[in-house]
Every structure is written in structure tokens, then in C-alpha cells.
């Protein structure tokens, strides 16, 4: 009796063990690759250092990366240099000393951070550059291909103001900071693209320093000087608000074709809807945040040392006009800003 009981217990234990083994085996059969992937991410640290955390693009990138970092048990911390290149270089230096696993940053211009980014890579930190490409290539660059975007803009402006139109063929360019990647490469592509349209005359190409008040003043004078101006390209919708205000106040809305580009925040949709922007190229900032996190995930899972594989991850873009604006087309920076606080 006793031995029968014992045997039964032994069978039961054996069955249990076999059963649990099967369960584990089934787990592995389902997804044997999940565990290593999660382990590669878990406990890793991401440091986020954009030019400023106070503007829509940086809020969307950071918000998306932080959400994903939380999901996979990674630590995320953001630093806000608030548009000061000095503060940014200092923060970068101290970040290199703190040695996070990944730094996500955004160059204020082509050169300022180049050496530091190289140092960070050499110290074994993976570096992802957002939107503004610096002079040094690191593990990944995430952002639109601004040169081709410039060329695309040249095509669009040529369609509105080129030789097939009854216009003056005069256009103006409003740049950002001359040496900022977004402005520098976009204008480069634009001028390159305009070579195919020699009839188009660029009457003004001034830098507004990412400041809407400055772009308003510049555009007011340009419109004054060239009342028959056909088109304006502004390299960023944030300062395009001022350019658009000048067009409106000169009574030229609808007459001047105004093309700009940006990350697709609500302000872009609002300005398309009220006719301030004729068209805008949207490079979808939350999508860039996703691309950045994808790059982080891929880099951490590959066991390669920092700086050994280098990607240019160009963001998809889409051209938007008034007709494309519907509820929910654009995103609310406030929602992402809250995530970063």
C-alpha cells in the first residue's frame, strides 16, 4: 500500500516535471529569440541631449524614445542645454564621463560636437544623431535626407513659379542658422535642384536664425522690394510662422506660393488649414523617434562595439497641403512634453 502510494507520487512528480519541461520547451518553441533580445536591452541606459527640450521636434523624439525605453526596462534621462552650444558641449563631456550605453543627440551645427561625438564612440558609447547631421558619422543618423528634400522643394517651386507659369519666376529662400545641418543641406539641395530651372531667380536668401520675428522682418522687406515675388521656401515651419505672417500682412496670401518643411506638429496643420503655408513637407517627428529607438535596439542587440557599424537612417517624408489636414493628422507636442517632464 505504502509502496503503491510512493509509486503514484513518483509518477505524479515525474509527470509534473515532464509537463513543466514541455511547457518550457513550448515557450522556447514559440519564441526562442525573445529572451536574448530583451536581455540585450534590459538595464541599459539612454541619455538624450537635443539642442533644447523646449521645441516640438525634440519633444516628440524624446517622448517616443522614453516610452519605449520604459517598456523594455531601460533607463532614460534627458538633458536640456536650452539652445546654448556651450552648455551642450559641457553636458556632452559630462555624459561621456557618466558613460551611458547610448547617447541620442542633435548637432547644433556641423562642427561644434564633432570631436566630442568621436570621443564618445571611442569610449564605447553608441551615438545616434537626430535630424542635424554633424561632420562626424557615428553609429546612426536619423533624419530626412535634407539634400533630396531640397531638390524636391526645387521641383515643387519650379512647378509653381517655373517657365510654364505666367509669373515673375522670382523666389526667396529663408534659411535657419547658416551652419545648421537642416538649413545647410536643404539649401544646398534646393540650389542644386534649381540649376535645372535657370529661369527661376533667387532674389533673396537670408538666415533667420530659427526665429520667427527675424523671418517676418526679412520677408516683409523682401516682399516690399519684390512685389511680384512668386514663391518663398522656408527651411523650417517653426520660423515659417513669421514668414507666413509677413505674406499675410502684405496682402499676398494666395499669390505667393509658400513652401516649408517640419516635423508635423499641430501648428503645421493649423497653418496649412488657414492658408499660411501653401504646402509643407512633413518628416513626421514621432516616426523619427521610432526610427531612433529601432536603431538603439538594433545596436544593443548586435554585439559589435560602438562605432563599428554606421547607418544613415533617412526618414520618410510626405508632402501636405490644406486638403490633407484632418483631425488627428498632426500630433500634439504638449502630450510628448508631458512625458519628458
Amino acid at each position: 500500500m505504502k509502496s503503491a502510494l510512493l509509486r503514484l507520487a513518483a509518477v505524479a512528480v515525474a509527470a509534473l516535471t515532464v509537463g513543466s519541461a514541455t511547457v518550457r520547451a513550448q515557450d522556447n518553441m514559440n519564441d526562442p529569440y525573445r529572451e536574448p533580445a530583451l536581455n540585450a536591452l534590459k538595464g541599459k541606459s539612454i541619455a538624450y541631449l537635443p539642442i533644447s527640450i523646449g521645441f516640438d521636434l525634440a519633444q516628440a523624439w524624446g517622448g517616443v524614445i522614453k516610452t519605449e525605453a520604459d517598456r523594455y526596462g531601460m533607463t532614460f534621462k534627458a538633458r536640456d542645454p536650452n539652445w546654448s552650444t556651450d552648455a551642450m558641449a559641457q553636458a556632452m563631456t559630462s555624459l561621456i564621463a557618466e558613460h551611458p550605453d547610448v547617447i541620442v543627440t542633435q548637432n547644433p551645427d556641423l562642427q561644434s560636437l564633432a570631436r566630442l561625438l568621436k570621443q564618445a564612440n571611442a569610449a564605447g558609447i553608441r551615438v545616434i544623431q537626430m535630424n542635424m547631421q554633424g561632420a562626424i558619422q557615428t553609429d546612426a543618423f536619423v533624419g530626412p535626407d535634407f539634400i533630396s528634400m531640397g531638390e524636391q522643394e526645387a521641383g515643387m517651386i519650379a512647378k509653381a513659379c517655373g517657365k510654364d507659369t505666367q509669373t515673375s519666376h522670382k523666389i526667396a529662400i529663408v534659411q535657419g542658422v547658416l551652419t545648421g545641418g537642416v538649413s545647410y543641406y536643404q539649401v544646398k539641395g534646393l540650389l542644386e535642384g534649381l540649376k535645372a530651372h535657370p529661369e527661376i531667380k533667387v532674389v533673396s536668401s537670408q538666415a533667420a536664425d530659427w526665429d520667427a520675428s527675424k523671418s517676418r522682418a526679412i520677408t516683409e522687406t523682401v516682399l516690399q522690394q519684390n512685389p511680384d515675388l512668386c514663391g518663398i521656401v522656408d527651411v523650417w515651419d517653426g520660423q515659417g510662422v513669421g514668414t507666413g505672417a509677413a505674406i499675410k500682412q502684405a496682402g499676398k496670401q494666395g499669390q505667393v506660393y509658400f513652401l516649408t518643411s517640419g516635423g508635423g506638429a499641430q501648428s503645421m496643420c493649423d497653418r496649412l488649414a488657414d492658408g499660411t503655408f501653401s504646402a509643407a513637407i512633413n518628416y513626421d517627428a514621432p516616426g523619427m523617434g521610432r526610427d531612433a529607438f529601432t536603431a538603439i535596439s538594433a545596436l544593443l542587440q548586435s554585439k559589435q562595439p560602438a562605432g563599428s557599424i554606421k547607418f544613415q537612417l533617412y526618414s520618410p517624408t510626405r508632402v501636405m497641403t490644406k486638403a490633407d489636414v484632418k483631425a488627428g493628422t498632426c500630433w500634439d507636442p504638449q502630450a510628448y512634453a508631458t512625458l519628458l517632464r
Partner: protein
Amino acid sequence: MALSLSKRAFNQERIVFLITIVLFAVFAVELNNFLAPANLLALVRSVAVLGMLGMAMLVVVLGRGIDLAIVANMAISVGWALQLIAGGMPVWLALCVGLGFALGMSLIGGILIAYAEIPSLFATLAMATFIYGFGRAHLITGTDVVYLPKDMGLVAQLGQGVVAGIPMPIIVAAATALAAYLFLKYTKPGRFIFAMGDNFNAARIGGIGVRPMLVFQYVLSGGATFLAGLITATSVGAMNTRIVNSNMIYDVILVVVLGGVGLSGGRGGVRNVIVGTLLIGVLMNGMTIMDVQYTVQNVIKSLILLFAIVSDSIINPRDEQTGQQGDI
């Protein structure tokens, strides 16, 4: 006598005015459309806000102070008001809150200077950082550019309206200049400011309540600042709080000093600020028409300032009699 007359004939204000006229004449001859009435309006309009901030600074500088918090106060108070409107607050109430914030901040600055006797340079520098930091941390918590809400009503006309062919910003700036002129010239507090700037201790012994007067100067400056910010926001369509980091505050000091207002106080008036502002306006307008990059514009602007100051000090050399204590 003849010598002193010629000396007086060429003070800094006159030199700057002369430069302005020469530049104006050169641009008028060289550049197409420069003299077009619409361009001249655009020229004045582009510096209207700068001129108003110059008036705010003037009132403080005449009393031998300086207000470095002007730009921060303008950006945060107006930005906050706009955000409140976007959040559903009635326009008039939000504007009162914004104005109250601007006045309150300059009141605190004034009290620090008048009663805690902190030099204005440091007190307002600290206040500028405080206002911006506090504003960005607790008031304007989203993006640092606050867009103009759609339903601003008549207030939007402050920046966008046109009366009798003249843009509203010019009219408001002119009204501010007139008010500043009348205040400084014909009211008792206005004269007291000159007295305090000229000789603070004598003014005090003479029975002027110097501490409340000091506070009053900064509060006035805060009020003018809010108005200037409102015009900026309604004409651009947004309040960009990032201007706090720009060199705008130096531009404000530039138009005040350029016109010949002494930083040591007691010397100058509204006319000086207008002359300084017009020079900057003519320069900027002409250079934009010529498509000069703004970095180069800054170089030219500073060279002209240096030229004005150097020629002033050659023509009117400083000595024990003309130099004042506290001259910078």
C-alpha cells in the same frame, strides 16, 4: 565760446543722426524702391518693438540703472497670457494676468534694487534668469514657442491692424514715445528721475523719495515691456520665448546708448532713443534689400556703434568736468 558751440554741435546724438541721414541718402540713391512709402513704413515697423523696449530701458537708464530683465519679462508674461487664452481663459482676463505678472516681476526687481540695495546690473540679470527659468518650468510648460490663439478678437489688431495706412505697431510705438516724452519732461516723477540719475545723493538730500521712485521706474519699464511683447506676438503670430537667449537685450541697450543716452544716468531723452532706433532701422532695411547675411549685418552694426562712440570721445574728450562717477 565758438569752441564750446562747435563741441555742442557734434555730440553723439548729432553724429548718429548724421550717419543715419548719410546712410538714408546713399540707400535712397543706390537701392530701388527704398524710398517707396511702403518700404519706409516697413522700415519703421521693423524697429517699432525695439524702439518701445528702448523707451522702457530709457526710463531706467536715466535714473542710473539698467534693466536686463526686459526681454525675459516680455517673452514670459506675453507667452503665458497667450497660453492661458489657448486654455480657454477670456482674452481680457488672460491679458490682465500677463500684465500683472510683468508688473509683479519688475516690482520685485525694483524692490531688490531700491531696498536691498543690490546693483541694478546684478539684480536684473538675476531676475532675467529667474523669470525665464520659472516661466519655462511652471508657466509655459509645452513648446517654447507659444502660438497666437485664433480667437484673439480686437487685440490681434495691435500687431496686424492698419489705421489710415499706417501699421498699428508704428502707432503704438509713437504713442509710447510721446507718453515717455511727456512723462519725463512735464511730470514731477519724470524730473525726479533725471535728478536721481544726475546726482543720486543730492536728489535724496533734496527730499525725493528715492527708493519708491526707483521701484516705480522698473514697474513702468515692466508695463511698457508687456505692451511691446503683445505687439510682437500679434504681428508675428507667436511668442517665441527663445528670444531670451538671443542678443536682443544688447540691441535694446544699443539703441539707447547709440542715440547718446549716458549709461551713467541723467543725460539724454526720448529723442536720443528715436535717433538710435532709426539708425538701426535704416541699416537693417538697407542691408536686407542688399541681401547681406545677418551675421555680416551684426558686424556692420557693431562697427557703426564703435565709430559713433569713438568719434564722440574724440570730439568731446572726457575730463574731470564732463566725466561722471559711474561712467562705463
